[in-house]
C-alpha cells in the first residue's frame, strides 16, 4: 500500500486536483493559504486606488464601467476568501492578518492613482499582468483555487480590454489626454512588471510551489510573456515605450529588456511605498466603523431567533 504522501504526489503528477478533504502536506496547505489569501487581499485592497476615481470619472459611461469593475474585484475577493476557507482558515483570521501586516497584498496597490489615465493604465497593465499569472493558475493543483481562477480570468480579461480601450481614447485624444496617458504608462509599467515577483533565483516560495504545481510557471517566464505582449500594445497606442532598452532578440524569440529596480521592489514590499500605510489604515477604518453595523445584525438575528423559539415552545405546549 502506498503512503498518503505518495498518493498525494501521485495525484499531483497525474494532474488530478487536490480537493479540500484530501490529505495534503502541512506545508502545501500553508503555501496555499498564503498565496490565496494574498491574492484575495490584493483584490480587496485594489478596490481603493480604483474606487478613488469613481466619484471623478469623466463620463457617465466610464463611471458605470468603473463601478462594475470595482464591484467585480470585491466579488473576486469573496471567491478567494471562500477558497482559502476550504483550507481551514476563517475570513476573520485572514482580515486580521491583512490588518496586522502579517499577510501581504500585491505591491502594485501601494502606488498612488493620480490621474484618470492611471485608472486606464491599471485596467490595461495591472489587470493584464494579473491575467498572465492567473491563466497559468487555472491549472493549479488545488481544485477550489483552480476553479476560482477560471471564473476570475473571464472577468479580468474583460477589465483588461476596457482598460486598454480607455487608454486608447486618451492616446488618440487631445494633447493633454495623450500626455496624461504617457505619464500613466511611465509610472505603471515598471511596477506592473514587478507584480510577477522577484527573479526565480530570489523567490523564497517558488521551488516547492512549482513542485506541488501550486505555481505552474516561473516568475521570470510569466514576466517575459507580459513584456512581449505589451510591446505591440504600446505601439498601437502611439506612446513611447518606457523601457529604452527594449529590443527584439531573434535567437531567444523574445524581447530583451532592462533590469528592474529591485531596490524599489523590496523597499515597497517592506512598507516604504507611497500608500502602504494609507491602504491598511483605510481598510482598518472601514472595518472598525462597520463594527456597530455587524453587531446590529447579530443582535437582530438573535432577537428573531429567540422569538421564533418562544413561539415554537408555545405551540408545543
Amino acid at each position: 500500500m502506498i503512503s498518503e504522501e505518495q498518493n498525494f504526489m501521485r495525484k499531483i503528477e497525474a494532474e488530478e486536483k487536490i480537493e479540500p478533504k484530501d490529505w495534503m502536506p502541512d506545508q502545501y496547505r500553508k503555501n496555499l493559504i498564503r498565496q490565496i489569501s494574498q491574492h484575495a487581499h490584493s483584490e480587496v485592497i485594489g478596490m481603493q486606488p480604483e474606487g478613488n476615481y469613481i466619484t471623478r470619472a469623466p463620463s457617465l459611461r466610464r463611471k458605470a464601467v468603473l463601478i462594475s469593475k470595482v464591484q467585480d474585484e470585491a466579488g473576486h475577493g469573496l471567491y478567494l476568501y471562500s477558497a482559502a476557507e476550504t483550507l481551514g482558515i476563517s475570513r476573520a483570521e485572514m482580515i486580521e492578518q491583512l490588518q496586522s501586516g502579517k499577510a501581504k497584498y500585491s505591491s502594485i496597490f501601494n502606488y498612488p492613482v493620480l490621474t484618470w489615465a492611471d485608472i486606464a493604465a491599471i485596467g490595461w497593465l495591472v489587470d493584464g499582468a494579473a491575467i498572465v499569472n492567473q491563466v497559468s493558475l487555472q491549472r493549479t493543483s488545488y481544485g477550489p483555487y483552480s476553479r476560482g481562477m477560471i471564473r476570475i480570468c473571464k472577468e479580468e480579461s474583460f477589465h483588461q480590454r476596457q482598460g486598454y480601450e480607455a487608454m486608447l481614447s486618451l492616446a488618440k485624444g487631445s494633447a493633454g489626454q495623450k500626455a496624461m496617458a504617457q505619464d500613466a504608462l511611465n509610472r505603471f509599467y515598471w511596477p506592473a512588471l514587478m507584480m510577477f515577483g522577484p527573479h526565480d533565483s530570489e523567490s523564497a516560495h517558488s521551488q516547492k510551489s512549482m513542485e506541488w504545481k501550486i505555481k505552474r510557471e516561473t516568475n521570470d517566464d510569466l514576466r517575459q510573456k507580459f513584456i512581449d505582449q505589451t510591446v505591440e500594445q504600446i505601439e498601437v497606442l502611439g506612446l513611447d515605450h518606457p523601457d529604452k532598452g527594449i529590443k527584439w532578440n531573434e535567437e531567444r524569440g523574445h524581447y530583451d529588456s532592462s533590469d528592474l529596480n529591485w531596490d524599489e521592489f523590496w523597499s515597497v514590499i517592506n512598507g516604504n511605498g507611497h500608500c502602504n500605510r494609507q491602504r491598511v489604515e483605510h481598510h482598518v477604518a472601514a472595518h472598525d466603523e462597520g463594527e456597530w453595523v455587524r453587531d446590529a445584525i447579530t443582535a437582530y438575528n438573535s432577537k428573531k431567533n429567540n422569538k421564533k423559539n418562544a413561539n415554537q415552545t408555545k405551540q408545543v405546549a
Partner: protein
Amino acid sequence: MSEAIKAATLEYATRLGDDSVVLGHRISEWISYGPFLEEDIAYGNVSLDYIGRARMFYTYAAELANDGRDEDDFAYMRNDREYRNLLLMEMPKGDFAYSQVRQLFADVYYTYLLPELLQSKDETLSAIAAKAIKETKYHLRRSRDWVLRLGDGTEESHQRAQKAVDALWGYTHELFDMDETEQLLADAGIGVDVSKLHDAWLAKVSEILTEATLTIPEDEWAVRGGRIGYHTENLGHMLTEMQIVHRSFPGCKW
C-alpha cells in the same frame, strides 16, 4: 408634441436624471467603505442602477433638446444652480444608518412613482420606468431589511437609525410638491402627480419604521428648493468633485 409639452418634458426628464445621478453618486461613495465586502458589492449594484437611470433620462432630455448636447453635457456641464434634484438625494452619505434610511425613503417613493410613470403616454418615460421598477423592488427589499435590523438591533444602531430618520424627515416633504411644469405633464398623462403619492408613501414608511421600533417624527420642519435649484451647500461640493476631470479637458472624448 406641442412646444409647451416638449419643453416641460425636457425639464421633467432632466429633473429625474438629476435625482438619479446625484443619489447614484452618493451611494457610490460607499464602495470600499462598507461594513463588510458583501455590502460593497450591494452598494455597487444599487449605484449602477441609478447611474443607468440617469443616462437614460439624460439621453432622452438631450434628444428633446436637440441642440448637440449629450448625456454627459447634462451631467457634467451644469452647475449646482442649474441642477434640479430633490434635496434628499444630495445629502452627504453620513453613517451607514443615515444612508440606509435615506435609501428607504427614496425606495418607497420610487415604489409608488414608477408604476405611475409606467402609465405615461410618453413611450420613452414609460420604458425607463419599466426597467427601473424591477430594480426598485430589489432596492426596497434591501433598505427595508437594513432599517429593520438597525432599528431593532443594538441600542447604538437604534439611536443612529432614529437620528437619521429625524435628520432626513424634513427633506421628504418636497418629494410630493407639484409645480406648473409637473402639473402640465400630469394633466397631459405624461408626468406623475406626486402629490397623490404622499399618503401611500407615509403609510408604507410608517409601517416599516414602526416594525423597526423607530418613531415617526412629528411634522415640525420642512426644507424645500431642489426643483428650483435652491440647494443645500452639499451639492456644490459634490459636483465640484464629480465634474473636475471632465471640465479640466474641455471638449474631450473619454
